[in-house]
């Protein structure tokens, strides 16, 4: 591969923005210069949502977590909370959850040792109850899982049903769902998923349901992260997130069931990634808030300041974590976290130092929390909001990312919108081109990665072998599936499943029927069968190649 590329003539960022040796006032375009003097907490909010920054509220320490049986995941969540995590995140087993299969599905049985590797198996509300056992969800911010669009309604309904059974008023419950289009249709295209149009309908159902019953819940969370780590660069990530938000808000507006300001507030909890490109990514967060303000005021005429403030969750890029010399990743995690904090994130998850090998070991998880605690308590980072504000370089970068971000959003619009750009594979091709170019620049040595293509001598006295997981997740899930089907009120369950199918086929909000189905102990795979018969299967774009 040594033949192909010449090194760039001038230094560029990871997303291809040329860099000057130094920046001055003339590098900040006039339009942006006009708002440079605004303070944090003032529109257009590129300088942050709140006047006092982290003095008002420290960022939430919020790590992805989960594996094995629901009790294994429960134990890890408690471990993280004990060590200082300030919210918790439930991962579900990818084999079952993402595909809406029960463990007795042939595709899962063929890979039974994979079950529980990346999240606990939760096939009925009983499993979710075990996973949440002893965790005070009435006072702790939780992510219910449901990262994949088709799994969202199930994961949320399971979490909320557990809450209701504990006597918690849903109107008081805080937390978040995800139902992310980037993960489902771009980054991690599963073997089977419902078409994008059906996914949009489910997400709009969740947004409206929360609007009515769970005012403190973030119903869905657009995860630019999953676009970014699949290959989209910083400004493509920005443009695509805006294009995704447009689909949600246009749909809510078209349906007319929920006040648009309330909907915009709910959709404004967004997830991005930060990479080792520290200033570009910090600027990306600033640009994102400014773009959100622009989108809501100009396209939708929204004036409520609460809705105009985008809240951001950051996960540090897993793809930056190297397999070689894994302890270097503790440094990488710290720097990427710093970028997120400088950009003003509201919550943060730091990928584990063993990310390239497995899901985090207990120790890697603890280190991710410790990195955040060091940043919160030893660096005086929380006392001054938007410390990069006014830097000619960062302001110029913010403006440039914004400009390119809107250009990319316009390209997506020209493709027919975000859903169309996913259906056609247009967005995947953009990601693929960057994947190839990124790898090529590493291969050609234009970009050095310490321990990988340079500085390869390793004196680490330890072998990091990743997290082995547990070996009984499949058997236990199998036994529990049989038990729930044996012990539930069968007529009630079948009735609830029929009602859910009717809701899916019609145009009513599916969430009330989903809640009833979970309460009647209908299982994940049964709901998947309904989806498959009602919604059919999305055709994976050719470029994905899987």
């Amino acid at each position: 591969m040594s033949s192909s590329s010449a090194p760039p003539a001038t230094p560029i960022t990871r997303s291809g923005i040329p860099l000057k040796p130094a920046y001055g006032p003339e590098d900040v375009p006039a339009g942006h210069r006009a708002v440079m003097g605004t303070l944090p907490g003032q529109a257009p909010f590129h300088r942050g949502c709140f006047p006092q920054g982290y003095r008002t509220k420290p960022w939430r320490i919020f790590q992805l977590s989960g594996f094995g049986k629901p009790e294994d995941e429960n134990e890890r969540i408690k471990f993280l909370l004990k060590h200082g995590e300030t919210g918790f995140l439930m991962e579900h087993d990818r084999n079952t959850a993402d595909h809406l299969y029960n463990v007795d599905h042939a595709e899962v049985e063929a890979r039974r040792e994979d079950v529980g590797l990346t999240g606990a198996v939760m096939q009925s509300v009983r499993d979710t109850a075990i996973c949440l056992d002893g965790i005070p969800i009435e006072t702790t911010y939780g992510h219910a899982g449901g990262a994949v669009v088709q799994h969202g309604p199930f994961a949320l309904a399971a979490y909320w049903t557990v809450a209701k059974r504990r006597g918690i008023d849903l109107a008081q419950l805080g937390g978040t769902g995800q139902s992310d289009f980037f993960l489902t249709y771009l980054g991690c295209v599963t073997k089977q998923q419902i078409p994008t149009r059906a996914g949009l309908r489910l997400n709009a159902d969740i947004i409206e349901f929360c609007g009515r019953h769970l005012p403190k819940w973030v119903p869905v969370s657009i995860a630019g992260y999953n676009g970014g780590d699949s290959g989209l660069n910083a400004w493509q990530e920005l443009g695509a997130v805006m294009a995704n938000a447009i689909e949600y808000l246009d749909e809510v507006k078209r349906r007319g069931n929920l006040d648009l300001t309330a909907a915009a507030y709910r959709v404004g909890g967004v997830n991005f990634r930060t990479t080792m490109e520290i200033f570009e990514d910090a600027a990306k967060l600033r640009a994102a808030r400014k773009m959100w303000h622009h989108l809501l005021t100009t396209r939708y005429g929204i004036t409520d300041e609460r809705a105009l403030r985008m809240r951001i969750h950051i996960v540090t890029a897993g793809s930056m974590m190297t397999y070689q010399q894994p302890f270097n990743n503790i440094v990488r995690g710290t720097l990427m976290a710093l970028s997120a904090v400088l950009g003003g994130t509201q919550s943060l998850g730091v990928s584990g130092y063993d990310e390239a090998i497995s899901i985090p070991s207990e120790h890697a998880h603890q280190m991710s929390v410790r990195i955040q605690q060091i940043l919160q308590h030893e660096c005086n980072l929380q006392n001054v909001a938007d410390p990069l504000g006014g830097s000619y370089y960062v302001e110029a970068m913010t403006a440039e990312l914004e400009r390119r971000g809107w250009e990319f959003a316009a390209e997506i619009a020209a493709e027919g919108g975000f859903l169309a750009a996913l259906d056609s594979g247009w967005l995947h091709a953009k990601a693929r081109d960057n994947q190839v170019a990124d790898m090529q620049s590493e291969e050609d040595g234009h970009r050095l990665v310490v321990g990988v293509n340079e500085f390869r001598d390793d004196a680490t006295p330890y072998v990091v072998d990743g997290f082995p997981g547990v070996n009984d997740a499949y058997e236990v899930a199998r036994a529990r599936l049989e038990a729930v089907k044996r012990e539930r009120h069968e007529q009630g369950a079948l009735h609830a499943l029929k009602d859910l199918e009717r809701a899916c086929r019609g145009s009513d909000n599916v969430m009330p029927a989903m809640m009833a189905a979970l309460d009647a102990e209908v299982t994940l795979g049964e709901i998947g069968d309904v989806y498959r018969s009602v919604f059919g299967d999305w055709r994976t774009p050719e470029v994905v190649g899987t």
Partner: protein
Amino acid sequence: MSASPRILLVKTALDGHWRGLSVVARALRDGGFHVIMGGMLTGPDIVRTALDEDVDLVGLNVGGSVQVVERVVTDLRAARPELPVFAGGAISPSNCRRLAALGVETYPPGSSLEDIVAAARRLTGQAAPG
């Protein structure tokens, strides 16, 4: 050489992350191989596809447990003992050793494309170009 050697690339797990596989597939195509993307297949389906497509090499993209991979390799060996297999993806050092014991070369994250293409040439009996 005559026709391009044929490589089947498959995912052993129900894990749709495609970035690594996509980059490797591109490098192999650029390296002169005919690449067949099998997608997420079960062990028996991998064997069937390898036979139907009459491939010269199988590349396993690993996003799950090593036991599943070992089963696939055993099935492939039973069906076509001479067919070489290599693997890439998030494979821990100890699992790399387990697969090496089965004669499967592994290319975890950070492996160079040049090395992967060279391995494909060697495993399919192609001479490296001058």
